[in-house]
């Protein structure tokens, strides 16, 4: 009995080790699952970012049609990489709105001039407050939102060419 007890610490450690090791190698660990999927957008109202383009409110996502919500910034390099895919989505008839994070009007105007402008509305989120409310931790991030304002999909990081089809499908399904 005494002998057995001496091996107990090793057994406990082995158990802990197995759990931690399995946690490390489980593939799901690498994808951050969003807490927002399946939930309605939080209420927000953001002022317009650039002249001639309206700002963004959560109400505009509850008008019966699915839309994309893209979180971006002019200082964000992956956002530049993502821009062509957004233009393609726009060309395929997907309506896209945006929230610009910690940015200024001239910088955003320059960004849109250089990389194209797929957006119908752009809200300015100077303090990242709406971004935080959305559960978004970085730029770029994109949400597929159905006609009732419910988030059906969240894409963390830039949209790659291979993601475009999947997003179009998600938008179709959200109808």
């Amino acid at each position: 009995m005494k002998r057995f007890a001496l091996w107990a610490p090793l057994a406990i450690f082995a158990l802990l080790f197995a759990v931690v090791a399995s946690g490390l190698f489980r593939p799901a660990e690498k994808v951050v699952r969003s807490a927002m999927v399946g939930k309605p957008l939080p209420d927000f109202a953001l002022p317009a970012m650039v002249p001639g383009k309206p700002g963004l409110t959560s109400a505009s996502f509850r008008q019966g049609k699915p839309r994309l919500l893209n979180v971006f910034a002019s200082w964000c390099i992956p956002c530049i990489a993502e821009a062509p895919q957004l233009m393609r989505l726009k060309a395929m008839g997907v309506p896209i709105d945006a929230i610009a994070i910690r940015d200024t009007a001239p910088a955003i105007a320059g960004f849109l001039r250089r990389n194209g402008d797929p957006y119908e509305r752009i809200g300015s989120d100077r303090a990242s407050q709406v971004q935080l409310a959305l559960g978004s931790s970085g730029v770029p991030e994109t949400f597929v939102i159905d006609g009732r304002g419910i988030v059906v999909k969240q894409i963390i990081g830039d949209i790659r060419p291979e993601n475009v089809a999947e997003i179009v499908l998600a938008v179709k399904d959200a109808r």
Partner: protein
Amino acid sequence: MIAEAGLAALWFAGALAALQLMMAAIGIARGREDVAAAVRPVAIVQGLLALLAMALLIELFRDSDMSVKLVVENSHSAKPWLYKFAGAWGNHEGSMLLWVTILGLAGGAVAIFERSLPERTLTATLGAQATIALGFYAFLLFSSNPFARLNPAAADGLGLNPLLQDPGLAFHPPTLYTGYVGLSVAFSFAVGALVTRDVGPAFAKAMRPWVLIAWIFLTLGITAGSYWAYYELGWGGWWFWDPVENASLMPWLAATALLHSVTVLATRDGLRAWTIMLAVVAFSMSMIGTFLVRSGILTSVHAFAVDPERGAFILALLAIYIGGALALFAARIGTVRAGTTFDPVSREGGLVANNLLLSVILGIVLIGTLYPIVAASFGVQLSVGPPFFNKAAGPIALLLVAVMAVGPLLRWRRDDAKAVLRRVMLPIGATLAAAIALLFVWPGVLPWAGLSLAAGLAVASVAPLWKRNLKRTPLFTYGMVIAHFGIAVSLAGMASDSAFTKETLVAVRAGEPARVGPYTVTLDGISPVIGENWSALEARLTATRGGSESILRPQLRFFANPPTSTNESAILTVLDGQLYTVLGQPDGQGRWQLRLWWKPFVTLIWFGGVLIALGGMLSLIGRLLRERRAAIRAEWA
């Protein structure tokens, strides 16, 4: 050339660690004393080579060498020099190199200074130390090379996370790492003693100063880290039970238990198996801490690299070292004779109670920290936050404080319950008086118990000096008194902060006053300021209390590389607490958000922490002086 020289130094150090391990093994297994004798110098040179590699990495950062990948990713030529310096370890590779440098230097220090241990046990200890170092050299060389070049070289670096651009960062990791690594020495001593079946008072005496050093640095590191988070993160709190905070708290709890049990072993020859076990557990907690921070398995504000491959490497090291030591423990400890026994009512009994309570708290923190990982493997995502830890660990910590108050008033071996009761009358009286007085300002259950016990512990901790000749009282007794008193001071600060903090969130125009606690705070105006690599909006606040006026300047800071904004809090420290101010966002109509806290006696938390560490230092000096005197006496006898 500097990067290549650094890499070469690292390879040589790794090779010497391998040599050190082989020589120690041959020395012990074959009884070759000539081979064993060479282990010491090899350990010293190995430590120096690691130090050289670290120095060269710092030089690369200081020089902003943009052909080195690590520098590009973590530095920027426009950064203030202090943060270039600290940037060397403000990242994964650099911090691992710092870790192995301290490990190597600690091994070298053991080789130079350790004279009291039998030569065989010392050789085994240095062999164990080389084994640990070898794993980390392999980790650096094969999976985290800090000297990797970038071809072509970058024009400039990406910068350092602005949250890390603070003097706190420059000193926090090295302090904490010295603590972590100090525990590796205790671990090596334990393994060495098991290998040579030499677990006894002599071994405990040799191990004790190393545990003390590790514990002092851990205490300082945690105290500084807590204060750093408090003023830099701008959220007004000082402890969040973040996984990375827990990663440093767990080794501290284990080291505190070890510190007390090693004393029982050194002076009374009791608790042999338990002390060895604690030495293994304490270092395991350091390793688990490193693993948690480095693997990206837990999400935390502090975690660096999300990299499963590196996580797997550290996990493998963890399995070899901890699993190996626990197996050695199980196989060998049966052959170690039990030490002397003692009555439950005795100083030893009190120390056992202290150890058990510390272990329970350690268990709670460990379970709370690992539970999200366990839950995730069953497909549930959750996080365990302050409510769990406060509720589960709080009451036990208070019980521990009660034991702390009584323990030092007990005699070794055996004590009389009635006499003990007489001795603790005064602390109990202080506790009750505080408890009754506090009923009038009811602060909530835990803070009430905390403040009352803090009063009792403060009285009890100085009681061992009562009626003693203060000049002839040994230094380590003063150390204990001060450390225990420091716990009472910290506890009072924590309880006072959680009970009496006042918080106000307002949006004000210039000239509009806001009230918090005893202060009236007026926003005088906002003006732009420019720093070395940031620009900021700075508020000028006038805080008035009674007749006195103070100016505070909290900032909203913007960094260009990488683009981020941070809140720089402004803190006014007065005798009875701190006024903590944070500038928030403008609302676009001329009003600014202000977050104001009045935190009575919050500074006691860190002042207590410094006292605890100071107590540790006095104990250490006291022990070393006594041993030196004993050695001199032995020489003359």
